[in-house]
């Protein structure tokens, strides 16, 4: 048994060290807000924060997770920036199918935590790893700008 802290809660788990965090979250702990899209860090749907940094959980194996706090879409709303991002997403009606949006929101929150007033180029740099198949990019950009200070 090892311990992992997710959204402030400590979980005891017994899984292989090379198991990606994505599947621990989804299939072991039942936190299905983090999505599987590609499994090769190309789409960003599985983005979570590891010690505040946006990472692709499909490529983040458990041995690199232990000892660092994980934040997921289920918990990011408890942070001030995360709550603002979620509210802006609804205010601007960013969401269509919504499947990528957990990852988009996690990437946007990580960006805004580092840079509270990002330029379009900053947004491109931070968000280009998150694919949206529905094409909500126009509104993602609007929503991020709307909460910039």
């Amino acid at each position: 048994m090892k311990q992992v802290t997710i959204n402030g809660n400590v979980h005891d788990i017994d899984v292989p060290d090379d198991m990606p965090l994505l599947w621990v979250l989804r299939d072991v702990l039942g936190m299905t807000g983090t999505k599987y899209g590609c499994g090769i860090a190309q789409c960003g749907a599985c983005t979570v924060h590891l010690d505040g940094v946006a990472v692709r959980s499909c490529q983040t194996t458990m041995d690199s997770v232990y000892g660092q706090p994980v934040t997921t879409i289920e918990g990011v709303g408890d942070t001030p920036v995360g709550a603002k991002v979620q509210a802006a997403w609804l205010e601007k009606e960013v969401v269509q199918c919504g499947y990528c949006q957990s990852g988009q929101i996690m990437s946007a929150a990580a960006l805004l935590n580092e840079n509270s007033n990002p330029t379009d180029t900053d947004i491109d740099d931070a968000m280009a790893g998150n694919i949206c198949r529905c094409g909500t990019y126009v509104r993602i950009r609007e929503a991020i700008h709307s909460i910039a200070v």
Partner: protein
Amino acid sequence: MIENLVSRRNFLKGTALATAGLVLAVQLPDSVRRAVAAAGDQQSFVPNAFVKIDGDGITLIMPHTEVGQGIYTSSAMLMAEELELDLDQVKVEAAPPDISKYMDPILYDQATGGSTSTRSDWMRLREAGAAARIMLVEAAAEGWGVPPGECRVAQGVIYHDTSGKKAPYVDIAPRAASRQVPKEIKLKEPSQFRLIGTKAKRIDTPAKVNGSLIYGIDTRFPDMGYATLVMAPVKGGRIARMDEAAAKAVRGVRDIVRTDDAVAVIGDHMWAAKQGVDALGVEWDHGPNSSVTNASIVTEMDEVSMKQGVVVRDQNDARSVIDKAATKLDAIYHSPFLSHSPLEPLNCTLHIENDKAELWVGTQVPVRAQKAVADATGLSPEKVTVNNQLMGGAFGRRLDIDSIEIAARLLKDIRYPVKVVWTREQDMTHDFYRPYYYDRVAAGLDDSGRLVGRTHRVTGSSVFARWAPAAFINGVDPDAVDCAAETPYDEDAVLADYVRHEPAGVTTSWWRGVGATHNLFVVESFVDEMAHATGQDPLEFRRRMLTKNPRGLAVLNLAAEKAGWGEKLPPGRGRGISLQVAFGSYLAHILDIEITSRKQIKLVRSILAVDCGIVINPDTVRAQMEGGVLFGLGTAMFNEVTFTDGKVDQTNFDTYRILRINEAPKVEVYQVESVEKPGGVGEAGTAAAAGALANAIFSATGRRIRSLPLSQGAVK
């Protein structure tokens, strides 16, 4: 496709499918029955297939499925408008599989596709809401001993102002349940709309921003199994050998199940299942399609396209008119196979028991999904419960049930719940692809530059012939020629024909924008060629041909005005137009691009002017235009599915590029106010993309794109 389907009602008449549909369409509004729920609960008020009011509150049943397009919100708006409810007062629920109640009257199936949902539901959902309201008011009035005409309703509460009496719907519902469904229903005039036409907030999105929405792939039960599978890499292939012992040795693997052409490993979680599948090291007998390549497919298409196909439109001997024309043009256009790749990979969860089965899945076709499980298990369809989930995109992919059928075959002897999730690699290499189309076009223009004759031969697979054979009549696939036979323009002499060619080793299906996406790329590019060949401005050339199409002209003019058409563009910039009448909507697209110093194409600004008739939710229209056009632009820039030795070459998003935020242009959407009946919007933006892009590239570089996607060096 739908205009053609509707205009082909004469073809459809007499077929079993059409007869069933027409009978139902006639019977439903006239059915007079008690509004009590058929089964058990006598306290439920169920006046029709779409409204249910009981102790749990007010539930609206959604005949169409939510793939992200916003239909749950607009369908609820239609009913809530007549029910005098606000959207936060209702719950929505996916319709169960029941074609007698939930058939899409345009598609003749319980299906969501072809941008038909709003067109199908515009009348029937408002009527359903109004019927329920009338019955509730009558029941309340009877109880109070007052005339129903003296009552009014607001926010789901019935008032009799004179007596001061009032009651919410839920209190009246039990009494309303014994009333007869009204025969005559008067709907509101548009001037009375409260909800329709407003930017009502979407009802499905709050749960999508905090991770709480359960998509099909998020289905979970205690002790369930998690499975993933591998399928024959070449269509028609069979498993030759595999190492089951190695898979079983993987920690967390429970069971291995197989058919001839697929094998799944069931584990404690997806990671175990994936590793189990890898450990199997399956070797395949590839079967008869192992020599298929893209080149072999295109060579075949080139050959079969030489001969006349089935004539779809033949007006005034277009060939001889072109022969005599002052300016003659001809060209061949190629449109590639495409993958849907919704971001939620295909998946379903099945719990098969001895005498029943239950399915959790996001599907655009719940009746077909139910039948797939029934057929594989030998159960009768009514023993299969379908729980339809919201979908993480579909774009046509979930109009097919192959993933459910395969899962049911694999799991038919497993008696615990199992979720089967396709890896992205299996999803992309076992898609049902948008057909490859090979188009031969020709045109003649007179010495004043007027289009006098046009021919268009479409060669490609027929999706209708597979998916709805009853709609494939006399060798014509109405979708394959949509927007090719008929254009928005004045045309005297047209010959359009269709050559069906089914490439070996490939299954084809609906893909966002369907036939219009492919044909508009060809037609709108070719119209641009005509303008340039005769030294005319592409906007003016189109305008001159729109004398009988005021709505088409209006959107074109609006887009041109917003784009600033006619201004001189900076060096390296290009601007292209695409105009369409498709899915019952009128759409003009003007796209600006830039050729960068590194000879890359940068999408700069996309202007869309749309007239989709009366608008239910203008923000949804805008969202569909934005997303649709980006879907189409990214595809035209990057995407093709190719085959080598019968196998698909593209396996994930590294080899099948999706447009990213840094590549997305600004998108501006302008809507024309209209009182015409609603048109479809989900597919329109996608269909408007490639033609405008190709024309913008020509404008910037003088290079004509006749084959998609844009190849490396397309602009050098």
